[in-house]
Protein backbone atom coordinates (compact mmCIF):
# COMPACT_ATOMS: atom_id res chain seq x y z
CA UNK A 1 0.00 0.00 0.00
CA UNK A 2 1.37 3.38 -0.98
CA UNK A 3 1.85 6.06 1.67
CA UNK A 4 -0.15 9.27 1.35
CA UNK A 5 1.18 11.56 -1.37
CA UNK A 6 0.43 15.27 -1.42
CA UNK A 7 0.41 16.23 -5.09
CA UNK A 8 -0.48 19.39 -6.96
CA UNK A 9 0.22 21.41 -10.09
CA UNK A 10 0.15 25.17 -10.34
CA UNK A 11 1.29 27.80 -12.85
CA UNK A 12 4.47 29.76 -12.20
CA UNK A 13 7.54 31.03 -14.07
CA UNK A 14 5.87 30.76 -17.45
CA UNK A 15 5.03 27.09 -17.05
CA UNK A 16 3.57 24.45 -14.77
CA UNK A 17 5.07 23.44 -11.45
CA UNK A 18 4.41 19.87 -10.33
CA UNK A 19 4.87 18.77 -6.70
CA UNK A 20 4.67 15.28 -5.25
CA UNK A 21 5.49 14.84 -1.57
CA UNK A 22 5.33 11.36 -0.06
CA UNK A 23 3.97 11.14 3.47
CA UNK A 24 3.23 14.86 3.54
CA UNK A 25 0.07 16.90 3.76
CA UNK A 26 -1.24 19.70 1.57
CA UNK A 27 0.55 22.34 3.64
CA UNK A 28 3.83 21.20 2.09
CA UNK A 29 2.54 21.87 -1.40
CA UNK A 30 1.29 25.28 -0.27
CA UNK A 31 4.79 26.14 1.00
CA UNK A 32 6.31 25.24 -2.34
CA UNK A 33 3.71 27.27 -4.22
CA UNK A 34 4.33 30.27 -1.99
CA UNK A 35 8.08 29.99 -2.52
CA UNK A 36 7.71 29.91 -6.31
CA UNK A 37 5.49 33.00 -6.22
CA UNK A 38 8.01 34.90 -4.08
CA UNK A 39 11.01 33.88 -6.16
CA UNK A 40 9.30 34.70 -9.45
CA UNK A 41 8.51 38.17 -8.12
CA UNK A 42 12.21 38.63 -7.36
CA UNK A 43 13.95 36.89 -10.27
CA UNK A 44 11.79 37.54 -13.36
CA UNK A 45 12.92 39.94 -16.06
CA UNK A 46 9.36 40.09 -17.38
CA UNK A 47 7.84 41.59 -14.21
CA UNK A 48 8.71 45.32 -14.26
CA UNK A 49 8.41 45.55 -10.46
CA UNK A 50 10.75 42.61 -9.86
CA UNK A 51 13.92 43.11 -7.88
CA UNK A 52 15.93 41.86 -10.86
CA UNK A 53 14.47 44.62 -13.05
CA UNK A 54 15.38 47.16 -10.35
CA UNK A 55 18.94 45.84 -10.40
CA UNK A 56 19.08 46.02 -14.20
CA UNK A 57 17.71 49.58 -14.16
CA UNK A 58 20.53 50.84 -11.97
CA UNK A 59 23.87 49.89 -13.49
CA UNK A 60 27.05 51.62 -12.44
CA UNK A 61 26.19 51.89 -8.76
CA UNK A 62 25.89 49.42 -5.87
CA UNK A 63 22.47 47.79 -5.55
CA UNK A 64 21.43 46.51 -2.14
CA UNK A 65 20.05 43.10 -3.02
CA UNK A 66 17.87 40.75 -1.03
CA UNK A 67 19.58 37.51 0.00
CA UNK A 68 17.65 35.63 -2.70
CA UNK A 69 18.65 37.93 -5.56
CA UNK A 70 22.24 38.24 -4.34
CA UNK A 71 22.64 34.49 -4.10
CA UNK A 72 20.95 33.78 -7.43
CA UNK A 73 23.04 36.31 -9.38
CA UNK A 74 26.17 35.17 -7.59
CA UNK A 75 25.44 31.57 -8.50
CA UNK A 76 24.70 32.46 -12.13
CA UNK A 77 28.00 34.30 -12.46
CA UNK A 78 29.75 31.40 -10.73
CA UNK A 79 28.45 29.01 -13.37
CA UNK A 80 29.57 31.42 -16.08
CA UNK A 81 33.08 31.05 -14.64
CA UNK A 82 32.82 27.25 -14.53
CA UNK A 83 31.63 27.04 -18.13
CA UNK A 84 34.10 29.69 -19.31
CA UNK A 85 31.22 31.88 -20.41
CA UNK A 86 29.31 29.35 -22.49
CA UNK A 87 26.57 29.73 -19.91
CA UNK A 88 26.20 33.51 -19.68
CA UNK A 89 23.59 35.34 -17.56
CA UNK A 90 24.23 38.66 -19.34
CA UNK A 91 22.84 37.86 -22.78
CA UNK A 92 19.68 39.96 -22.50
CA UNK A 93 20.74 42.21 -25.39
CA UNK A 94 21.19 39.18 -27.63
CA UNK A 95 17.91 37.64 -26.50
CA UNK A 96 16.03 40.87 -27.16
CA UNK A 97 17.72 41.29 -30.53
CA UNK A 98 16.49 37.83 -31.39
CA UNK A 99 12.97 38.92 -30.41
CA UNK A 100 12.72 37.36 -26.94
CA UNK A 101 11.75 40.61 -25.22
CA UNK A 102 8.51 39.48 -23.58
CA UNK A 103 7.13 36.34 -21.94
CA UNK A 104 7.18 33.43 -24.34
CA UNK A 105 3.40 33.10 -24.32
CA UNK A 106 3.18 36.53 -25.96
CA UNK A 107 5.77 35.53 -28.56
CA UNK A 108 4.06 32.21 -29.30
CA UNK A 109 0.74 33.97 -29.90
CA UNK A 110 2.21 35.89 -32.83
CA UNK A 111 3.50 39.04 -31.15
CA UNK A 112 6.58 39.13 -33.35
CA UNK A 113 4.98 39.12 -36.75
CA UNK A 114 5.54 42.79 -37.47
CA UNK A 115 8.72 43.38 -35.50
CA UNK A 116 11.91 44.35 -37.18
CA UNK A 117 15.24 42.95 -36.15
CA UNK A 118 17.42 45.37 -34.21
CA UNK A 119 20.81 43.88 -33.60
CA UNK A 120 22.51 45.07 -30.46
CA UNK A 121 26.25 45.38 -30.44
CA UNK A 122 27.43 41.95 -29.35
CA UNK A 123 29.81 41.77 -26.43
CA UNK A 124 31.19 38.77 -24.59
CA UNK A 125 32.27 38.05 -21.04
CA UNK A 126 30.34 40.95 -19.58
CA UNK A 127 29.64 38.84 -16.51
CA UNK A 128 33.32 39.17 -15.50
CA UNK A 129 32.79 42.82 -14.63
CA UNK A 130 29.90 42.28 -12.21
CA UNK A 131 30.99 43.16 -8.68
CA UNK A 132 29.70 41.51 -5.49
CA UNK A 133 30.07 42.96 -2.02
CA UNK A 134 29.41 40.01 0.26
CA UNK A 135 29.55 42.12 3.43
CA UNK A 136 26.81 44.46 2.28
CA UNK A 137 24.90 42.13 -0.05
CA UNK A 138 25.45 44.64 -2.85
CA UNK A 139 25.70 43.94 -6.55
CA UNK A 140 27.20 46.45 -8.96
CA UNK A 141 26.49 45.97 -12.65
CA UNK A 142 28.80 47.75 -15.10
CA UNK A 143 27.20 50.22 -17.48
CA UNK A 144 25.50 48.42 -20.34
CA UNK A 145 25.25 45.10 -18.52
CA UNK A 146 21.95 43.53 -17.49
CA UNK A 147 21.35 40.15 -15.89
CA UNK A 148 18.91 37.48 -17.04
CA UNK A 149 18.30 34.58 -14.66
CA UNK A 150 16.14 32.65 -17.11
CA UNK A 151 18.97 30.15 -17.52
CA UNK A 152 18.90 28.95 -13.92
CA UNK A 153 15.78 30.52 -12.43
CA UNK A 154 13.62 27.40 -12.44
CA UNK A 155 16.36 25.01 -11.35
CA UNK A 156 17.49 27.42 -8.65
CA UNK A 157 13.95 27.78 -7.28
CA UNK A 158 13.41 24.01 -7.39
CA UNK A 159 16.51 23.50 -5.23
CA UNK A 160 15.34 26.10 -2.72
CA UNK A 161 11.86 24.58 -2.64
CA UNK A 162 13.28 21.17 -1.81
CA UNK A 163 15.52 22.75 0.85
CA UNK A 164 12.53 24.29 2.58
CA UNK A 165 10.94 20.86 2.91
CA UNK A 166 13.77 19.73 5.17
CA UNK A 167 16.32 16.96 5.41
CA UNK A 168 15.23 13.46 4.49
CA UNK A 169 12.14 14.57 2.60
CA UNK A 170 10.72 12.18 0.02
CA UNK A 171 9.45 14.59 -2.61
CA UNK A 172 9.78 15.73 -6.19
CA UNK A 173 9.43 19.28 -7.51
CA UNK A 174 9.30 19.68 -11.29
CA UNK A 175 9.32 23.17 -12.82
CA UNK A 176 8.38 22.64 -16.48
CA UNK A 177 10.99 19.94 -16.91
CA UNK A 178 13.67 21.13 -14.46
CA UNK A 179 13.30 19.02 -11.36
CA UNK A 180 14.78 17.61 -8.20
CA UNK A 181 13.83 14.17 -6.93
CA UNK A 182 14.54 13.73 -3.21
CA UNK A 183 14.33 10.42 -1.40
CA UNK A 184 13.10 7.06 -2.57
CA UNK A 185 9.87 8.05 -4.27
CA UNK A 186 6.39 6.56 -3.66
CA UNK A 187 7.60 2.94 -3.88
CA UNK A 188 10.95 3.44 -2.18
CA UNK A 189 12.91 2.48 -5.29
CA UNK A 190 13.63 5.98 -6.57
CA UNK A 191 11.75 8.42 -8.76
CA UNK A 192 11.04 7.48 -12.36
CA UNK A 193 11.54 10.38 -14.76
CA UNK A 194 10.63 10.11 -18.43
CA UNK A 195 12.87 11.97 -20.88
CA UNK A 196 10.56 13.39 -23.51
CA UNK A 197 11.37 12.51 -27.11
CA UNK A 198 11.88 15.81 -29.01
CA UNK A 199 10.47 14.19 -32.15
CA UNK A 200 7.30 12.90 -30.50
CA UNK A 201 6.11 14.52 -27.29
CA UNK A 202 3.95 11.51 -26.46
CA UNK A 203 7.01 9.26 -26.24
CA UNK A 204 10.05 9.05 -24.03
CA UNK A 205 13.62 8.57 -25.19
CA UNK A 206 14.16 6.64 -21.97
CA UNK A 207 13.09 6.61 -18.33
CA UNK A 208 15.53 7.60 -15.61
CA UNK A 209 15.52 6.24 -12.07
CA UNK A 210 16.93 8.88 -9.73
CA UNK A 211 17.13 9.59 -6.03
CA UNK A 212 18.54 12.79 -4.52
CA UNK A 213 19.41 14.19 -7.93
CA UNK A 214 18.47 17.12 -10.10
CA UNK A 215 17.37 16.55 -13.68
CA UNK A 216 16.93 19.24 -16.33
CA UNK A 217 16.39 19.39 -20.07
CA UNK A 218 17.29 22.20 -22.44
CA UNK A 219 16.61 22.40 -26.13
CA UNK A 220 15.42 24.39 -29.07
CA UNK A 221 12.19 22.48 -29.70
CA UNK A 222 9.88 24.46 -27.41
CA UNK A 223 10.90 28.11 -27.16
CA UNK A 224 11.44 29.02 -30.76
CA UNK A 225 9.88 31.54 -33.10
CA UNK A 226 10.25 32.98 -36.57
CA UNK A 227 11.06 36.61 -37.22
CA UNK A 228 11.77 38.08 -40.65
CA UNK A 229 11.80 34.54 -42.05
CA UNK A 230 14.57 33.52 -39.65
CA UNK A 231 14.08 30.86 -36.97
CA UNK A 232 15.24 31.83 -33.49
CA UNK A 233 15.26 30.12 -30.12
CA UNK A 234 16.22 31.15 -26.60
CA UNK A 235 19.58 29.40 -26.27
CA UNK A 236 22.15 32.01 -27.22
CA UNK A 237 25.56 31.08 -28.59
CA UNK A 238 27.65 33.65 -26.74
CA UNK A 239 30.40 33.47 -29.35
CA UNK A 240 28.06 34.69 -32.09
CA UNK A 241 25.46 36.55 -30.04
CA UNK A 242 22.45 34.83 -31.56
CA UNK A 243 20.48 31.61 -31.34
CA UNK A 244 22.75 28.59 -31.32
CA UNK A 245 22.91 26.39 -34.41
CA UNK A 246 23.76 23.35 -32.29
CA UNK A 247 23.29 19.96 -33.93
CA UNK A 248 21.52 18.89 -30.73
CA UNK A 249 17.78 19.21 -30.31
CA UNK A 250 17.70 18.54 -26.58
CA UNK A 251 20.08 17.71 -23.77
CA UNK A 252 18.96 16.19 -20.46
CA UNK A 253 21.42 16.40 -17.58
CA UNK A 254 21.47 14.66 -14.20
CA UNK A 255 23.45 16.31 -11.41
CA UNK A 256 23.60 16.84 -7.66
CA UNK A 257 21.29 19.86 -7.85
CA UNK A 258 18.62 21.05 -10.24
CA UNK A 259 20.61 24.25 -10.79
CA UNK A 260 23.70 22.29 -11.81
CA UNK A 261 21.64 20.07 -14.10
CA UNK A 262 20.06 23.18 -15.63
CA UNK A 263 23.46 24.72 -16.37
CA UNK A 264 24.98 21.49 -17.68
CA UNK A 265 22.04 20.85 -20.01
CA UNK A 266 22.32 24.34 -21.53
CA UNK A 267 26.09 24.28 -21.75
CA UNK A 268 26.18 20.84 -23.37
CA UNK A 269 23.52 21.95 -25.85
CA UNK A 270 25.51 25.05 -26.79
CA UNK A 271 28.80 23.17 -27.09
CA UNK A 272 27.26 20.61 -29.43
CA UNK A 273 27.30 16.81 -29.50
CA UNK A 274 30.98 16.08 -29.14
CA UNK A 275 32.22 18.87 -26.89
CA UNK A 276 28.99 18.91 -24.90
CA UNK A 277 29.31 15.26 -23.86
CA UNK A 278 32.99 15.73 -23.08
CA UNK A 279 32.23 18.77 -20.93
CA UNK A 280 29.69 16.90 -18.81
CA UNK A 281 32.13 13.98 -18.39
CA UNK A 282 34.35 16.37 -16.42
CA UNK A 283 31.84 16.32 -13.55
CA UNK A 284 31.99 13.00 -11.65
CA UNK A 285 28.43 13.28 -10.34
CA UNK A 286 26.82 14.34 -13.59
CA UNK A 287 25.57 12.53 -16.68
CA UNK A 288 23.63 13.59 -19.71
CA UNK A 289 21.64 12.40 -22.70
CA UNK A 290 21.54 14.34 -25.95
CA UNK A 291 19.28 13.87 -28.95
CA UNK A 292 20.56 15.20 -32.26
CA UNK A 293 18.57 16.61 -35.15
CA UNK A 294 19.32 13.35 -36.98
CA UNK A 295 17.67 11.36 -34.20
CA UNK A 296 20.82 9.91 -32.67
CA UNK A 297 20.91 9.53 -28.90
CA UNK A 298 24.22 10.43 -27.27
CA UNK A 299 25.09 9.76 -23.66
CA UNK A 300 27.90 10.12 -21.20
CA UNK A 301 29.46 6.89 -20.04
CA UNK A 302 27.83 6.61 -16.62
CA UNK A 303 24.26 7.06 -17.77
CA UNK A 304 23.44 3.36 -17.27
CA UNK A 305 23.48 3.97 -13.52
CA UNK A 306 20.32 6.02 -13.96
CA UNK A 307 18.39 4.09 -16.58
CA UNK A 308 15.22 2.39 -15.27
Amino acid at each position, binding site marked *: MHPEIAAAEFPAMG*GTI*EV*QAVGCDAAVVARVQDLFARYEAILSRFIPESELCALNNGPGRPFAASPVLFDAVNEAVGWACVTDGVFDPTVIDDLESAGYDRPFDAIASGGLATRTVKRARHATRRWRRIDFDIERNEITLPEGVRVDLGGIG*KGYTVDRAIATLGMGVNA*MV*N*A*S*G*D*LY*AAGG*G*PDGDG*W*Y*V*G*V*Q*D*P*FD*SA*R*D*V*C*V*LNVSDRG*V*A*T*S*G*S*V*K*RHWTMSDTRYHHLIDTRRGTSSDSELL*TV*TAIALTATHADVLAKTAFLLG*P*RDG*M*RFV*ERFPDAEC*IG*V*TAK*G*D*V*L*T*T*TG*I*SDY*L*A
Partner: protein
Amino acid sequence: MALRKHLAAKLVAAGAALASMLGIWALVRLDPPAPADAAPAAAATPATQRPAQTGRAQASKSRASQPVMPKRQTRTRAS
Protein backbone atom coordinates in the same frame (compact mmCIF):
# COMPACT_ATOMS: atom_id res chain seq x y z
CA MET B 1 -15.95 -69.00 -24.31
CA ALA B 2 -13.73 -67.23 -26.78
CA LEU B 3 -16.32 -64.50 -27.14
CA ARG B 4 -16.47 -64.09 -23.35
CA LYS B 5 -12.66 -63.79 -23.19
CA HIS B 6 -12.70 -61.29 -26.05
CA LEU B 7 -15.36 -59.14 -24.31
CA ALA B 8 -13.45 -59.28 -21.03
CA ALA B 9 -10.26 -58.14 -22.77
CA LYS B 10 -12.18 -55.32 -24.41
CA LEU B 11 -13.57 -54.31 -21.02
CA VAL B 12 -10.13 -54.31 -19.42
CA ALA B 13 -8.72 -52.25 -22.30
CA ALA B 14 -11.58 -49.76 -22.06
CA GLY B 15 -11.09 -49.51 -18.28
CA ALA B 16 -7.41 -48.93 -18.72
CA ALA B 17 -8.06 -46.23 -21.28
CA LEU B 18 -10.60 -44.61 -18.98
CA ALA B 19 -8.20 -44.78 -16.03
CA SER B 20 -5.47 -43.27 -18.17
CA MET B 21 -7.71 -40.42 -19.20
CA LEU B 22 -8.81 -39.83 -15.62
CA GLY B 23 -5.19 -39.85 -14.53
CA ILE B 24 -4.22 -37.27 -17.08
CA TRP B 25 -7.22 -35.17 -16.10
CA ALA B 26 -6.25 -35.43 -12.43
CA LEU B 27 -2.70 -34.40 -13.21
CA VAL B 28 -3.95 -31.44 -15.18
CA ARG B 29 -6.21 -30.41 -12.32
CA LEU B 30 -3.40 -30.70 -9.82
CA ASP B 31 -1.06 -28.56 -11.89
CA PRO B 32 -3.16 -25.88 -13.60
CA PRO B 33 -1.46 -23.53 -16.05
CA ALA B 34 -0.34 -20.17 -14.65
CA PRO B 35 -2.78 -17.38 -15.37
CA ALA B 36 -1.67 -14.78 -17.88
CA ASP B 37 -1.08 -12.13 -15.23
CA ALA B 38 1.24 -14.43 -13.28
CA ALA B 39 3.73 -14.83 -16.08
CA PRO B 40 7.38 -14.73 -15.04
CA ALA B 41 8.57 -11.23 -14.20
CA ALA B 42 11.23 -11.33 -16.87
CA ALA B 43 8.60 -11.82 -19.54
CA ALA B 44 6.21 -9.21 -18.13
CA THR B 45 8.81 -6.47 -17.74
CA PRO B 46 9.74 -4.77 -21.00
CA ALA B 47 13.36 -4.41 -21.89
CA THR B 48 14.75 -1.03 -21.01
CA GLN B 49 16.16 1.14 -23.76
CA ARG B 50 19.79 1.80 -23.00
CA PRO B 51 21.57 4.10 -25.36
CA ALA B 52 24.61 2.35 -26.76
CA GLN B 53 28.00 3.57 -25.63
CA THR B 54 31.11 3.46 -27.72
CA GLY B 55 33.79 5.37 -25.94
CA ARG B 56 34.40 7.66 -23.04
CA ALA B 57 32.26 10.55 -24.15
CA GLN B 58 30.42 9.60 -27.28
CA ALA B 59 27.67 7.13 -27.84
CA SER B 60 24.91 6.95 -30.33
CA LYS B 61 21.93 4.87 -31.24
CA SER B 62 19.09 5.39 -33.60
CA ARG B 63 15.73 6.26 -32.05
CA ALA B 64 14.09 3.78 -34.39
CA SER B 65 14.10 0.77 -32.04
CA GLN B 66 12.51 2.09 -28.87
CA PRO B 67 10.80 -0.61 -26.78
CA VAL B 68 7.92 -0.05 -24.36
CA MET B 69 9.03 2.07 -21.40
CA PRO B 70 8.79 1.17 -17.70
CA LYS B 71 6.74 3.20 -15.25
CA ARG B 72 7.31 6.90 -14.82
CA GLN B 73 6.17 9.39 -12.21
CA THR B 74 7.14 12.62 -13.91
CA ARG B 75 8.84 13.88 -17.08
CA THR B 76 11.65 16.18 -18.06
CA ARG B 77 11.44 18.16 -21.29
CA ALA B 78 12.75 21.27 -22.92
CA SER B 79 10.78 24.23 -21.63
